């Protein structure tokens, strides 16, 4: 077995969590294994925007705020998502299904505006499409 780094341990802890976050227990465990103070572990963890120490929704929505998406009307989509989900950027919906996050650039600029939900990219978005996508995921997960 290869030795893992603190960052990898944190990534792993987060990926094992249903609520997409790193618990205090995880941090304690990593601190113990690595013989590293808690402050250091948090120092690393809080540096990276894909890591969270707060519970998040089952699905992470990353809406792109890059220049190409901005030009293609990305702001409207952010507002639409806020309205549909009833949350602000960085918040989680009441039902615990979605967390809305903004990404600096997802590198899908040829089909801007775009977003990703978990590992799935969605492009050439419109306000209607965004609403539909959220609806279909909601219906899919309820089953």
């Amino acid at each position: 077995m290869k030795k893992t780094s603190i960052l990898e341990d944190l990534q792993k802890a987060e990926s094992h969590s249903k609520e997409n976050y790193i618990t205090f227990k995880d941090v304690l465990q990593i601190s113990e294994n690595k013989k590293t103070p808690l402050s250091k572990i948090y120092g690393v963890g809080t540096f990276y925007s894909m890591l969270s120490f707060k519970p998040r929704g089952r699905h992470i929505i990353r809406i792109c705020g890059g220049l190409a998406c901005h030009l293609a009307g990305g702001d409207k989509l952010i507002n639409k998502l806020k309205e549909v989900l009833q949350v602000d950027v960085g918040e989680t919906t009441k039902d615990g299904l979605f967390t809305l996050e903004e990404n600096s650039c997802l590198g899908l600029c040829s089909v801007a505006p775009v977003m990703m939900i978990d590992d799935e990219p969605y492009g050439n978005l419109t306000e209607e499409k965004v609403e539909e996508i959220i609806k279909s995921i909601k219906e899919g997960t309820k089953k």
Partner: protein
Amino acid sequence: MKHRILIAEDSKSLLNRAKEIEKLFKKELEKRNLSETVSVLPTGSLGYEDIGVALVIYPDNVLYAPVNSKEDVQTIVKEHFVDGKVVKKLQKPFKRFSQIEKIMGIQQRIVLENVGKISPEDIKEYIAFDGYKGFENALKTSPEGVIKEIKDSELRGRGGAGFPTGKKWEFTAKAKSDKKYIICNADEGEPGTFKDRTIMEGDPHRVIEGMLIAGYATGANEGIIYIRGEYALSIERLENAISQAYDLGLLGNNILGSNFSFDLQVKKGAGAYVCGEETALLNSIEGKRGEPRKKPPYPPTAGLWGKPTVINNVETLANIPVIMRKGAEWFKQFGVPGSYGTKLFSLNGDLNWKGVVEVPFGTNLSFIINEIGGGLKDNLSLKAVILGGVSGSLLTPNEINTPVDFNSLAKIEAGPGSGSITVLSEKRCIVDVAKNIAKFFRHESCGKCTPCRVGTDQMYKIIDRISKGQGEGSDIQIMEKLGRTMKLTSFCGLGQTAPNAILQSLKKFPDEWNAHIFDKRCPVNVCRLEA
């Protein structure tokens, strides 16, 4: 005659349900008893990406797009394969270039030679197209010989700075150490840039082969591909490719019966643009905060865990196999002195055709925009081009009649940078664009040094005020001074380049800034000013 249908299944095509189309083809071919003679495979992006599901049929070299439905699939199978006719109505986006040769022909696909031709999911496909031959040639040469070949090719890094690759390798080769590393920088986070993704999704083995050759040349036997966490499909295809390479003995111990051993793994980033900076990247791989390190020492002599480390961009490494296969002299027939070979560009913004294209260095920027990119959408006129990403430069229509290469661009204070070309039409507001750029850097500044941490924040606040009609007479001067300070005193390239495009916009579009600041007016009605 055996036919191959290659369906573009890159991230952007997949979101148009390319996978479903693949399945529909398989079903339809089976129904017509054609499965034996026509195979269906996934491939990488065909260059133009905003065209729906696209596919090429070889050996006929016919491209169809967009293929949207079951009916489209049935039509192609019936008319193309049974009747032997080209289905003209399914070639809509390419009225001008209906044949794949023409589309590929105005490009020069060297790095992307396999993308659109082979399945990225099968190592045998790569090998059938001369894959790993460059590495075999390297093994027959001495490590010094390989470095000489790369130096002779005058290949320069494609990650932005343009450092000569052969020279970089030589530093690491000459460094004495029990352990050395090869790192592929696949953090691609520069807004407007998505060319490395095209390589990794379309031809992942090429990156592995480039790293193997780098390892052999420098005496490194461990490689790491550091890739941004959001690039799920790239990660999947690279990991699959690595495991296939291990299975065939192209990675691991005593590769192909030689004394050379090389291990390779993928490490995922966790969302931080600064980690593309090479020393921040090293810290991130070591599991620390991704803050940049002091240079010197430089990574080629003291990099990962303090050991000599070559860090190259994905595109740089993807150039290596073909140089080792066909030689430096062959390579130098492309491009211009000072910038040999080709360059990938990510076309985006207000263009008709967007995507990743590969052209020889020295191609005129206006040709790339107007011919390859099909000109501006809705016949609008050009206002500005952001070249090399938001840390790059802002060019006016007067400046785009220029060859794209390191030397020519340096004359207009620009560079190819990350290879992104963001086209802005007359309807775009320069202040609004500057605000988006400033917001990006404010968010991505790592906070280690004051000029960048505070500078990016102040820059954003000033522009935000101006965009709301609260600009003040002294703002331009303050921004200029702030920008200069950031350039001169920031710790790393992030803060040093963050003000570039903004400062250039102040110089090149003073009237537009002044209209916002003094007249409280946005000439193109993008900003909402509350006077």
